[in-house]
Every structure is written in structure tokens, then in C-alpha cells.
């Protein structure tokens, strides 16, 4: 029964497993989540410099643009314990990818992506002295922070408000 279940699971995720194992040793592969056009591959990894076990996330994103690939690389391969922060979890990575898709569809230029010290992922945007960021937390919340004309404001938002925020706050950031 277990063997049948494993086979069913393997067949279900076969394309993802093949994609993930193209850059991972099979034995390292612990978990896969699949999405429409990409897979997230979770691996247990021993960092040779610090000899700590770290879970790292590899994202197979070959169907996306080079920009997207670079962005994703910034938030994966993360040695969170070495940095003494909480690693972005599956929820924040998935939500960050939703945010990315919307930003990408609106042609908003992302300046930088980094892990958050609070756990999660940060998207940053700069224009002259103005600065804005989206923070996607490990707990499923979204925050928008801006520093414009010397005033710093910050608030939570729902992902379906994102396009409105982009429309009202990001016009000058787009590179359409």
C-alpha cells in the first residue's frame, strides 16, 4: 500500500521531481510544491562553512524571464540560521510570487528583494529620494511602507488591493 502511494505520489510530481533533481541530489529532496508554471523544491543542506543544517528552497522557474529568475534567487538558497533570522516559509514565498506576478504584469521595476529579519520577503523600490517596500510575512500578511517627502507611512493590505496601490503610488516607478 505504501509503495503504491509512493508510486502515485511520484507519478503526480514526476515532472517537478525531474526539474528539481536537475540541480539537487535526489536524496536531498525533501518536499516539492507545484504551481502553474513553477515548482518549489525543499532541500536539507549542510552548510560547509558553518556546519549548520539549513533548509534551503530551490525554485525551478525556467518558464519565467531572467529578471524573475534573479529575483527568485535572491529569496531562495537562504542560509537563514547563519544569518540568525527566520527563513521565508512556503506561505511567504508563494505570496511573494503572487505579488511578483502582479508587479510584473504592471511593468513595475523592482529595485531589490531581500529576506525579512522578521521572516518573510521584502520587495524594495527606489526613485530619487523616495523609497517604498512591500513586506510579505511568514504569517500571511502583506505590508506596504513608503518614505516620500520625508514622511514614513506603513500599513497592512490585502493582496487584491495591490493593483490599486501600484496605480496610485507607483506610476513613476514603472518602466513601461
Amino acid at each position, binding site marked *: 500500500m505504501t509503495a503504491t502511494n509512493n508510486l502515485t505520489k511520484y507519478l503526480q510530481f514526476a515532472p517537478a521531481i525531474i526539474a528539481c533533481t536537475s540541480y539537487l541530489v535526489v536524496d536531498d529532496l525533501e518536499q516539492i510544491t507545484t504551481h502553474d508554471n513553477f515548482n518549489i523544491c525543499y532541500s536539507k543542506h549542510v552548510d560547509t562553512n558553518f556546519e549548520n543544517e539549513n533548509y534551503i528552497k530551490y525554485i525551478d522557474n525556467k518558464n519565467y524571464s531572467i529578471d524573475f529568475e534573479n529575483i527568485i534567487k535572491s529569496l531562495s538558497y537562504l542560509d537563514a540560521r547563519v544569518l540568525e533570522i527566520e527563513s521565508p516559509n512556503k506561505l511567504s514565498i508563494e505570496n511573494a510570487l503572487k505579488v511578483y506576478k502582479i508587479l510584473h504584469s504592471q511593468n513595475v521595476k523592482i529595485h531589490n528583494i531581500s529576506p525579512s529579519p*522578521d521572516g518573510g520577503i521584502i520587495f524594495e523600490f527606489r526613485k530619487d529620494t523616495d523609497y517604498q517596500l512591500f513586506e510579505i510575512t511568514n504569517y500571511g500578511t502583506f505590508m506596504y511602507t513608503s518614505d516620500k517627502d520625508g514622511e514614513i507611512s506603513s500599513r497592512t493590505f490585502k493582496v487584491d488591493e495591490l493593483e490599486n496601490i501600484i496605480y496610485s503610488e507607483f506610476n513613476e516607478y514603472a518602466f513601461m
Partner: protein
Amino acid sequence: MHSCEEICIPERLHKKNKHAEKKFNSDEVLFRRFNVPVQLKDKTDGWGNLIFKLDNDSYNRSSFSEPEDVLYNINANNCDGRYYQKWGIYELPLNEINNSSIEFKIENRKRLISFSAIHSPVDCMYPHSELLVFENGKQLTREDFIGPIRPAVRTYLKKFGKVKKNPDFD
């Protein structure tokens, strides 16, 4: 708990019988060690978010230490782990931050936040200091210091500091 000698912290940094010096000079800076993932090696302007954890952050004050002293690990188990050789050093000037107030708009509500540097020596690190965050004169507790106030405070703090030493990515 190991003695300062057992973990090879230089004697000049030991607290011994010295007391905290409350007053900070106007030109004083705080040093903080930090590390960033190698993926951000060339994204230096993205490092700021990783520097301020806002969780009882530790610093060394410049009056009593050299920048590199902040790389000593006073929680090491032995001399081998005493120094974060590859970590970077961030320098935060206090002149515009210490004891000044700033108004943030959080969830569409104005909140008055201030920062206060305190010297809090520990046995093996006399220069050890903290930067406390207050709202309306009351120190923010962990329970109060959640949600969008955190990225707002980080955004403010990183406007003033600069990287003194880059992390070593080799």
C-alpha cells in the same frame, strides 16, 4: 557560561568593575555586526533590511571600542568561535537619532516614536549598548512592536547609517 579569558575576548573589552556611562557624545556612533546571504552580494542597498532586527538589538558604542570589536562573540563556547571574521560592520551615527522623535503614519494613524541609546555593559563586552524604541515616552514592548511599525522603523534607521565593513563572501 565561559569566562572572558576562556573565549579569548581581549581584556581591554572586559567590564571588570567599570560602570555604565549614561551620556553619549554628540558625535558618537554605534557599531553593529551583520551578515547577508551571498545572493545579495552585489545588492548592497538591500542589506539595510537585514541589519536592524529590532529584537533587543546589540551594538558597541564608539567611545569605548574599535569598529572590529563588535565582531567578537561573547556567547562563544571557546576561542575558535570567538570572532565573526566574515561578518560586516554597520555604523549608525547617533546625532540625529538619539533622543529625537519622529512621527510615523501607521495604519493611517499618527504615532510618535523616539529612540534612546543606552550603554549596557556585559561582563566580556564593556562597550555593549542597545537602541531602545519608545512611543509617547513609553518603551515599546515586544507585544506592541509588531506589524507595520517595524518596516517603518527600519526604513527610518537605515537612512542614517552606512556599511563600515562589507561581509566577506569568499
